[in-house]
């Protein structure tokens, strides 16, 4: 027994030693940067210098302006909508990938999902611009059918479409793992006992894949909240998310304290939202 305990200690030290570079990296790059941002958010900005004088004016400015509160709302709305759409569109594809008996079908689906990850985000966005702008392919098609034009760019619709496309691959791969972990024999047993496919899905598959659904929602929502390039290029300067506000303040006005305050608020809202969703789903899993 004594020998076992000291073996465990050696193993733990070894693990710690192996983890040490990653811990240092995370602490230095992320935690230190976060701490600097936290401190800077409480400094004053007097063009062109940051004055290290404690102030709450950056947060006061944010919360007293309908512009910034409105942007927070839009950011949350777009992230939540994108996350939900990614889940709803991704689940059937993930299910097909996990359950398909045909190797060819699985291979084709897998490559189709994977291939979109090979393209850079800028290329994908410009492809959407070509498709969705007023003179784009979608509207030209609608025109030949005597419909449209429909405004699909420079508004929330375009941003949601492009963001969902971007996040769909992440959603599918996250869900696929969870669905694969559910033994097909459980589904077969339900069907054998007379359950319809819908009942089987609702009572067996869906509850058992809730952890995967939670991971999918957390991942896509977090990425959605921090979206920057998509609203910048597809928002047309008319729809902003908080990350665009942060960028404008840093790059064009040099107001880094205010940008830090916005970043902290974004981080706080993201953390609270994801924690709430986790609590709700975890409660559901335990009750189930």
């Amino acid at each position, binding site marked *: 027994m004594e020998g076992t305990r000291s073996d465990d200690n050696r193993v733990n030290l070894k693990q710690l030693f192996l983890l040490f570079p990653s811990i240092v990296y995370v602490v230095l790059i992320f935690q230190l940067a976060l701490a600097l941002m936290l401190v800077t958010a409480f400094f004053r900005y007097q063009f062109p210098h940051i004055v290290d004088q404690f102030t709450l004016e950056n947060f006061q400015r944010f919360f007293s302006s309908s512009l910034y509160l409105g942007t927070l709302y839009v950011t949350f709305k777009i992230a939540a909508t994108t996350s939900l759409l990614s889940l709803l569109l991704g689940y059937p594809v993930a299910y097909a990938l996990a359950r398909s008996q045909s190797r060819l079908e699985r291979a084709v689906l897998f490559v189709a999902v994977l291939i979109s990850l090979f393209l850079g985000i800028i290329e994908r966005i410009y492809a959407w611009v070509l498709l969705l*702008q*007023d003179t784009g392919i979608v509207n030209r098609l609608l025109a030949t059918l005597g419909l449209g034009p429909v405004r699909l760019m420079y508004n929330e619709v375009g941003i949601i479409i492009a963001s969902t496309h971007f996040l769909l691959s992440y959603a599918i791969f996250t869900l696929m793992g969870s669905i694969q972990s559910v033994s097909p024999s459980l589904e077969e047993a339900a069907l054998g006992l007379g359950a319809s496919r819908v009942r089987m899905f609702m009572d067996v598959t869906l509850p058992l894949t809730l952890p995967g659904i939670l991971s999918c929602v957390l991942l896509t929502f977090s990425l959605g909240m921090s979206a920057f390039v998509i609203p910048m290029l597809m928002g047309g300067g008319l729809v902003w998310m908080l990350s665009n506000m942060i960028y404008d303040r840093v790059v064009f006005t040099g107001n880094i304290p205010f940008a830090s305050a916005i970043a902290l608020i974004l981080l706080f809202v993201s953390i609270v939202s994801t924690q709430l969703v986790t609590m709700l789903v975890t409660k559901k899993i335990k009750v189930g």
Partner: protein
Amino acid sequence: MTLFSCTAITKLQAIVVIVIIIVAGAAGYYLLTPKEKPYITVTTWGENFLDAMKNGVGVPFEQQYGVEVRYALQGSSGEMAAKLIAEKGNPSADVFLGGEQAVVRAALAGIMAPLTEDKVPNLKDIASAAKPELNNTLWYVGVFGLASGWALRTDLIPANLAYNGSWRWFLDPRLKGKFTVHDPTWTDQMSWAAAVYGGDDHNYDPALKFFKDFAPNVKFVFSTDAEATNALSSGEIWGAYEYATVVYGLAQKGVQVQMVYPEDVPTVNGIKSPITFDIDVIGVVKGGKEDLAYKFINYILSPEAQYEYCSRLGNAPVNPKTKPMPPEIAPYLLTGSELERAWRVDLQYYSTIQDKLVERWQTEIAPLIGKG
């Protein structure tokens, strides 16, 4: 034992062999790799700007001085200014070439090294208008002059809606959603709009009033030239307020686009019907390879480099000793009576109010755009 039979080696012998291989490899790499040439890093925008810098300035400079020129690409000089300020003391670029507004910010943040005639002899030939001092010191010098105005796809505009030379044409309700405008981080457009409605470069309330009236005719707001040029070339919009050099680049790609400067804009600061005019500027970043940077700046200000650089961009050189620009660039340069309309706005003042102005734009103007 035969020649090819294996003998067992110890762990220690294996480690020794591996270490010898690694050391020999490293030594070989070090000895066989040619010594790195001296180099400097210059900031520039992409596309035609990069092409002009590389072929017009960088390559000849390298051939003459044996110093390699590398390029740090910037989507906007504001972005580069923010980066260089954050890197203070250890910059990733040695020469900062950018819009004057951004370089002013960099200079005020203390990251630029002063320019003097003993370090940059060609400074003595440069027009004084291209050598603006900040707090009695020259931190940057103009590298070319460029006008900004309205770029119009005259080939797409129907004959009954043809541009009539007046700023009022832009407010025609039949032109709903046919324009794009830059976000308010760009001084020129805001200053032009202020002038149109009776303001100037110290009074931007009229500019906001103009954009409220213009908003229904605006489809979207752009932050980078690429967004505007893509929309102009696809025909998504018919007009954009842009730099002449950007329009020149677009015209070179075969897009039928024309620069226009409305002639009935009210007089500002004694200038009749002003045309906004900038100088893009260049300076030495403190803490970089300053000696080589001064050499580069001196070179780019020489008549030969000015001709090669500006003729590729369609911009006006700042060195009066430069030979005349090719005739095909004339439509993009201010010539004759247009030169008297050139209006250089107060960028330093704009920098101080920009934060609040951007906020007002986002609150008062942006919600109205594209809703007409």
